[in-house]
């Protein structure tokens, strides 16, 4: 694990990837759902950022906005910037945007069975970009595909090129996805819940593989997950999302030691722990908000044990807590220093 980078430090030449105040709406017949409401985060070369949140918090939508693969309609990016190496991707024409996809920023998805095309052999799918975008010959592409499959530790790679996705096990399929994402040697890898659909034992293998590959290939990684347990060993920094906002942003150790947002605290408390047997597992009361009617003030206030009148009236801004930590809570200091729960 590399040294945690303070969130505030900006390297010379700017961040590798820099999201600024991103807003995304889904415009449907039933109304407008505000899915992303001012998300800002950044990623530097070689680091791993974990984006954490329940389903519906907007973490996957943010990733798809970065990739430029949101379905539009209904999705609509209403404000913000996504800067990659200093260029705002959102202002690029589609053709230049496409050049970035796969080659600079690649993505792997949650459910590899549906994310892979069922009617093409996996070798064909991994090699497609090599032939189409790099103009490799069939033979060269084939050699490279075998290399990639060996890189992600698929046994007997050269004999499995012609197999179809449904002939692989869940873990092996996810490896195929990863090999496909690595084909163009991207600088940034976005992994959207890469282990959620897998068995627990396989989950650990895939996480280890991703961490190793990130280090060996010197990529930066955004790891999207709802599972705090997955994050601790792999990530450098964590951004916690709730109702389309980042509510807390900190390096892994400080966040685990002393969460500074009641929502993060709730998430941490709801992890089953071996050292506290017999006790009742804590949960966060209530449900995530309806994104068409986000509560006034702090969107978390209806579920928050610390809530006061100010939380209902005023939207909290990011509070800088030192060491580059931020928390979007009126009582961030108190929450961080409150060790009672």
């Amino acid at each position, binding site marked *: 694990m590399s040294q945690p980078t303070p969130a505030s430090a900006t390297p010379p030449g700017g961040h590798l990837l820099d999201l600024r105040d991103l807003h995304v709406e*889904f415009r*449907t017949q*039933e109304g407008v*759902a505000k*899915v992303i409401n001012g998300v800002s985060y950044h990623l530097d070369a070689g680091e791993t950022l974990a984006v954490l949140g329940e*389903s*519906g918090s*907007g*973490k*996957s*939508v943010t990733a798809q906005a970065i990739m430029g693969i949101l379905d539009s309609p*209904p999705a609509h990016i209403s404000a913000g910037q996504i800067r990659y190496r200093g260029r705002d991707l959102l202002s690029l024409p589609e053709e230049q945007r496409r050049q970035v996809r796969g080659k600079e920023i690649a993505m792997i998805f*949650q459910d590899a069975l549906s994310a892979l095309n069922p009617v093409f052999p996996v070798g064909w799918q991994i090699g497609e970009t090599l032939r189409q975008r790099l103009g490799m010959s069939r033979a060269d592409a084939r050699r490279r595909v075998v290399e990639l499959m060996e890189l992600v530790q698929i046994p007997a790679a050269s004999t499995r090129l012609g197999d179809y996705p449904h002939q692989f096990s869940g873990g092996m399929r996810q490896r195929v996805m990863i090999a496909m994402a690595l084909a163009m040697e991207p600088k940034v890898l976005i992994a959207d*819940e890469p282990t959620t659909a897998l068995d627990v034992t396989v989950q650990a293998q895939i996480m280890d593989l991703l961490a190793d590959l990130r280090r060996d290939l010197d990529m930066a990684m955004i790891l999207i997950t709802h599972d705090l347990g997955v994050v601790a060993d792999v990530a450098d920094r964590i951004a916690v999302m709730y109702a389309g906002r980042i509510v807390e942003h900190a390096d892994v150790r400080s966040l685990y030691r002393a969460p500074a947002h009641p929502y993060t605290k709730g998430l941490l408390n709801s992890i089953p722990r071996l050292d506290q047997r017999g006790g009742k597992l804590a949960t966060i009361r209530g449900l*995530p908000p*309806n*994104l*068409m009617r986000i509560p006034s003030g702090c969107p978390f206030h209806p579920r928050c044990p610390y809530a006061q009148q100010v939380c209902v009236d005023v939207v909290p801004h990011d509070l800088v807590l030192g060491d580059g930590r931020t928390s979007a809570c009126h009582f961030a200091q108190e929450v961080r220093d409150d060790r009672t729960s």
Partner: protein
Amino acid sequence: MSERSDVGRLRKPSSLAGDAWRDLRRKPIFWISLALVLLVTAMAAAPGLFTSNDPTDCALSRQHAAPSGGALFGYDFQGCDTYARAVYGARASLLVGALSALFTGAIALLVGMLAGYFGGWVDAVLSRVIDIVLGIPLLLAAIVLLKRVSVDSATVRLTAVIFVLAVLGWTTAARVVRSSVISARQQDYVAAARMLGAGNGRIMWRHILPNTLAPAIVVLTIALGTFIAAEATLSFLGIGLREPTISWGIDINSGRVHMRESATPLVVPSTFLALTVLAFIMLGDAIRDAFDPKLR
């Protein structure tokens, strides 16, 4: 994709039927086809309201004569009033269509309910039967069956056509009923009813039947249109209804034979038939779209 499904979940809860009705009300196709269906039903029930001429009053002296005295579209080869015959033709078509759909519905509900509710070997056997009947080309089987009816009595031929269409045409509806029974059976309230000690018959009648009615009615509305077309086709071929019954299929065939002399006796019953079939199919299609808006 978790985000997207969550947005779907955020829709405000409202009843399916209410949504469907609101959707339907805004569709001109729904109103047009409904109006046509009502019009042709009125024609079948009381043809005298639409024409004062007798469709069986034919005279060769008026062969292909021009329109006159209530005969809006003139006279056909036999010297009968083309318009009056088209009006009176609605009765046979609608009778065959409605009764076939009714019997089809009864068979489909019975088979689909048994197969879907009991599952297991009952389902296996019944599904096989559905496959086999579905595998018999409808027109060919109808030809073979109706060839055996050599009687010319109007009632016998009418019954035979309805019987043939019902026996061959129930499979699609049965499949629809079966799958909606299967999905209804898995609902929590059915499990609850069973735990409270309700018997199979009661559960089927009270809890599952209501769930299958909407999709069944949609399929049967479309089937009604298809049956009307099938009746006309069989009568056109000479193996369905026969003279003296007045049927669009018979008139289209005789109009076709003499179209070089006068096309109106072909065009008029053709238009009546096409509009009627279209009306039922469009009505069913509009209702289905309203109930199942996934692909709109």
